[in-house]
């Protein structure tokens, strides 16, 4: 199970805190896609295309396509 940090209650992403990218569960049991590196983000809810990505309680970008819960959130789907 992977360590992560959920910085504020409003965040719809968490940041992964280990490099055990083969694992598919976060330490709270929720599903996460394999392959997400240390320090990168995973969605913790389904995020419609165009919706805000919220980290630190603020909008850090928007989904450039629909993002499923557990998916890696980075340059391919967030700008």
């Amino acid at each position, binding site marked *: 199970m992977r360590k992560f940090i959920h910085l504020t209650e409003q965040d719809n992403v968490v940041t992964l805190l280990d490099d055990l990218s083969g694992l598919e569960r976060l330490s709270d049991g929720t599903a996460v896609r394999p392959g997400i590196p240390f320090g*990168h983000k995973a969605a913790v809810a389904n995020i419609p295309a165009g919706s805000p990505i919220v980290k630190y309680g*603020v909008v*850090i*970008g928007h989904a450039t396509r629909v993002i499923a819960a557990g998916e890696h959130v*980075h*340059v391919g789907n967030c700008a």
Partner: protein
Amino acid sequence: MSENGFSGFCRADGRVGVRNHLLVLSTVALTNRLAEMVAESVPGSLLLTAEFMRGLRGRDVLIQNRVIDGMIRHPNVGAVLAIVHDAAAGERMRETLAHAGKPSDVLVFMNAHGMADAVAEGRGALMRLAAAIAGAARETVPWSRLAVALECGGSDATSALFANPVIGRFVDWLTDRGGTAIVSETAEFIGAEPVVRSRAATPAVAAQILDRISRIEEMMKADGEDYRGVNPTAENLAAGLTTLVEKSMGAVAKTGKAQFVACLDFAETPQQAGLCFMDTPFFSPVSITGMVCGGAQLVLFGVGVFNPSGNPLAPTIKVCGNPATMQTWADSLDLDVSGILSADRNIDEMATALRETVARVAGGAQSCAESWREGQIIAPKSVAAL
């Protein structure tokens, strides 16, 4: 218990000091050496010398005077011996000290009969000031009387995710109780404009802060730098930072979620409680000079890899979430928050630990940077001197 408040020295102007410094302040570089010798002659005094100059022009005069005045009036200073070069400066300083609300004296270098005489006169004046404040006693005061300077440096992923968010959680707690926090380093806010807009208490405050940020960006462009074009960098992207806002938030996280209530100029004193933005350069000794001379009694400093900066007047509390740094620089760091990474501690628990550390340091326990006597006073300049 730290719930009720912190312990400090109540000053005539209503502010509270967490230290009771006997300050020897050289007001111009010409008297730095004299100040050193006077301070050496009275153990326990605090020497403050900087590169204060004559021949400054325009805004640089204002800034230098504001820094000097800010130190004289600082609540952590119990008494001050101001050393000036000539009689005219002496007259002006007497006028300033008359309103300082604390025991003080002026030593005029050119009135002395040689260097040894100047040192002897200074020593006598300093001993009298030491006696004047020897009986000062601490009282418990509410947290609303605390103003903290917020700083980060040696930033890495751990400061963005652990140290700065922990500081931010403490700032939320402090500002909820009527306290004040000052954040600075304008360049770090490039990219955080949407956050400033949504968190400014009024449109006027937002406009002032955004104006300061855009001026810095114009300076960078004039230097040929395209900050937005190159950020996040390839290294940032590899590390998981996706957007410039996210990168900026790594530093802005130390402000918590409070509203920005004011935009301050360099070393300007806040006129209201809450979270304030101060326009300063990004170099930590300079930004800390600005925030402390504006009145911050303590500095909260989030580090990833180590950064030594402190301040002579205000104890600096170093908060670190990087386990490797905690090991290497254990003699220079005050609060380890890497437990969030390794042991399932959370931000709230670490923020409570920070509050307890703040209460202890405010009450007299030395911070590491303070015990190393770390820190410089640097007043920024913008034009050529005569």
